[in-house]
């Protein structure tokens, strides 16, 4: 009888004939889209530069400028379209032996953003061979190695980075690796000291400062220090729009049962997939009516990405499947596939949660190994791994 009533509700809700489709808007004034870069100062600049570049495709200096700005815009707005446009600017210099080092570097950054970590490392190794002074190349290498949990390599890269430039950025590079390899307290202290000693650099390069404080906040949160909240708020005072920071802060809020704050923070930022995911989790937590729409939007985006053959957002999709679609088996498959590519604390967490929810805790053994051999200090992850606590629904991934 229960099955019958479920079927009845299902048939009532989903009339087989009803379907969404293209539509004819009601009036000429109906707004169909807001182009985000039109609201960003770099958007107008890029338009002008791209027009110049269209007439002068071989202008290397201009192409590099455009690509750099596009990559920066993609990070600021959380939008991969600008990565594609950066690639377009660099198109006359495909990856090959005569590629200039600066082009290779930007191509490596784009490859990394598309999760082609192997391709990115190959290109970066050629950059450092061609142009040993490239600090950016070492920083990017460190990030890729860290994302893959290759901590000794990442430390080496940070050291090379520090040999080429001094100050806050190399300190944070090293501290972020130390924070994952059994030296979290030391890393927190080092970051605090470096931030107070490099205030001029922090003011001149707010992006570096935001990055530094975000790493500080994430580390503090991971080891269970209440100072995390204070760090997040300090970072937000510097830049309240950084998508990565907003996602990390939203996760902290979700973990501390503050979904309403997440909704207030993110309701205007539905364009950015990872932020839409956090928003939907928060809406689901308080039973907000918008949740259904946002879950449908996310499902459509993941489906498009699947059709495109992309594997970029398996971490987010696993979390979506587990917490918003109640499909632990699918979440586990996604989280396992994700772990073969990315091995960060958030990847560890979703794999542990999915494995427990799917009733296959042994499937998270790679995470247990990662925790043990690196001496990762993360009490909540360890408790999940040891089966001491139930997975936290709506949690961070």
């Amino acid at each position, binding site marked *: 009888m229960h099955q019958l009533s479920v*079927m*009845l509700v299902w*048939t*009532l809700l989903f*009339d*087989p*004939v009803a379907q969404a489709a*293209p539509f*004819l*808007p009601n*009036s*000429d*004034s*109906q*707004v*169909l*889209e807001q*182009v985000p870069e*039109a609201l960003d100062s*770099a958007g*107008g*600049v890029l*338009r*002008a530069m*791209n027009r110049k570049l269209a007439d002068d495709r071989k202008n290397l200096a201009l192409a590099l*400028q455009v690509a*750099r*700005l596009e990559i920066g815009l993609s990070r600021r707005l*959380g*939008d*991969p*379209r600008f*990565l*594609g*446009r950066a*690639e377009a600017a660099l198109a006359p210099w495909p990856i090959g032996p005569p590629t200039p080092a600066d082009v290779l570097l930007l191509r490596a*950054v784009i490859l990394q953003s598309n*999760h082609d970590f192997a391709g990115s490392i190959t290109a970066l190794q050629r950059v450092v061979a061609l142009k040993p002074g490239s*600090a*950016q190349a070492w*920083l990017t290498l460190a*990030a890729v190695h*860290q*994302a893959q949990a290759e901590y000794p390599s990442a430390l080496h890269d940070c050291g090379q980075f520090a040999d080429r*430039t001094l100050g806050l*950025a190399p300190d944070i590079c090293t501290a972020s690796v130390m924070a994952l390899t059994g030296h979290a307290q030391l890393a927190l202290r080092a970051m605090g000291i470096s931030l107070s000693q490099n205030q001029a650099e922090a003011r001149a*390069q707010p*992006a570096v400062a935001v990055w530094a404080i975000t790493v500080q906040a994430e580390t503090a949160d991971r080891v269970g220090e209440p100072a995390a909240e204070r760090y997040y708020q300090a970072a937000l005072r510097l830049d309240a729009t950084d998508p*990565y920071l907003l*996602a990390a802060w939203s996760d902290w809020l979700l973990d501390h049962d503050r979904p309403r704050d997440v909704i207030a923070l993110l309701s205007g930022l539905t*364009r*950015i*997939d990872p932020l839409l995911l956090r928003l939907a989790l928060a809406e689901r937590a308080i039973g907000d009516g918008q949740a259904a729409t946002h879950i449908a939007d996310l499902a459509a*985006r993941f489906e*498009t990405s699947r059709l*495109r*053959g*992309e594997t*970029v957002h398996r971490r*987010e999709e696993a979390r979506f499947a587990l917490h918003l679609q109640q499909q632990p088996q699918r979440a586990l498959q996604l989280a396992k596939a994700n772990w073969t590519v990315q091995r960060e604390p958030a990847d560890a967490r979703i794999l542990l949660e999915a494995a427990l929810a799917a009733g296959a805790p042994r499937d998270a053994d790679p995470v247990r190994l990662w925790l043990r051999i690196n001496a990762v200090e993360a009490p909540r992850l360890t408790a999940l791994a040891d089966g001491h606590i139930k997975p936290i629904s709506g949690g961070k991934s």
Partner: protein
Amino acid sequence: MIGSAPMPDAARALHHLLRLQVGVLCLLIVLSVPAFAHSSSSSYLTVVKDTDKLSVQWEIALRDLDYAIGLNPTGRITWGDLRARAPAIASYTLPRLRLDAGGGRCRPGPVTLLADERGGTGYAVLRFIARCPGQVHQVGIAYSLMFDLDPQHRALLDFIAGPSFHVAVLSPDRPRVALDADVGLGRTFFDFGRVGVDHILSGPDHLLFIAILLFPAMFRRVNAGAWLPVRRFFPAFLETTKILSAFTIAHAITVTAAVLGWVNVPSRLIEGAIALTIVATALDNIVPILPRRRWTIAFGFGLIHGMGFAAALGPLALPPLPLAVALLSFNLGVEAAQIAAASIVLPLGFALRNMHGYSAKFIPGASGLAGLVAIVWFMQRTLQIL
């Protein structure tokens, strides 16, 4: 090709920015999470094969069109902007999609412009019919939109030839596909048979109709509408066969008539009428209102359901022989699915026929429930409420 009007302000800002960057080590801060957002640029292309033409629906992100040809300098794109730029949109996009079939290039006709929203992003929808020089057997599609401006752009292609369905992703590395639009007779038979089976098994309305039609199959109706259980299975089985065959013959007639274009009733009316047939049959299970002989009901209502099946098949642009095969196998598929449904309902009904309350409570109760659901469907379909 980028932007629409010169922007002196932007040029000034550019010089300012270039000056700023000189001498400053501009790190691209790479946070521990590399790619952070993931909605890259995609277009959705649907191509439906017809005898000597292709029906095309092409959905292109408004952001991409704005980047390529400029729709509104403020970035706030309205339906008015889209309509005003319709000729420019057509002349920019159409040359970047080449369709070849029937021995040459298929020429796009007039474009109908619509809007759509996918996953929270605005899209322009271009619909047109491309006429080909001859009969369509092989279709070649060559795509180049946006590839020069964004190599991450992809076209997600659905190619539909009758019941067969082909999906492809077009990219700068693979901008062309060749598709076989010709389907063998055996394949046609199999595919349309499957469409018939799927249509019954995936459509709750037909299943519901068959179920309530067969609920009382193990009973005889006596005066005042009460039900008496039958003694033997076989006569009841024969009676059911008669009912289902009448239903099948009736819907085969109207499916054929509708597919060949002899009758044409708006699908909303048909869907509403199908819901009404369920209401009437359900009501009849409670209070007799329809003719006593069930096969006549099945035949009459089958005519209506058949027109609904025709909508599932869609307009079939097939030569005579494949068309006949398609219609036959579709109806056989429908029949097979019905028999499958009956072979579950019938033995159950026979086993339960003497159970206390089955005829007095279960049949009216379940029929009433089904009737209510059908009333809701009826209102949704005809009045567009709820």
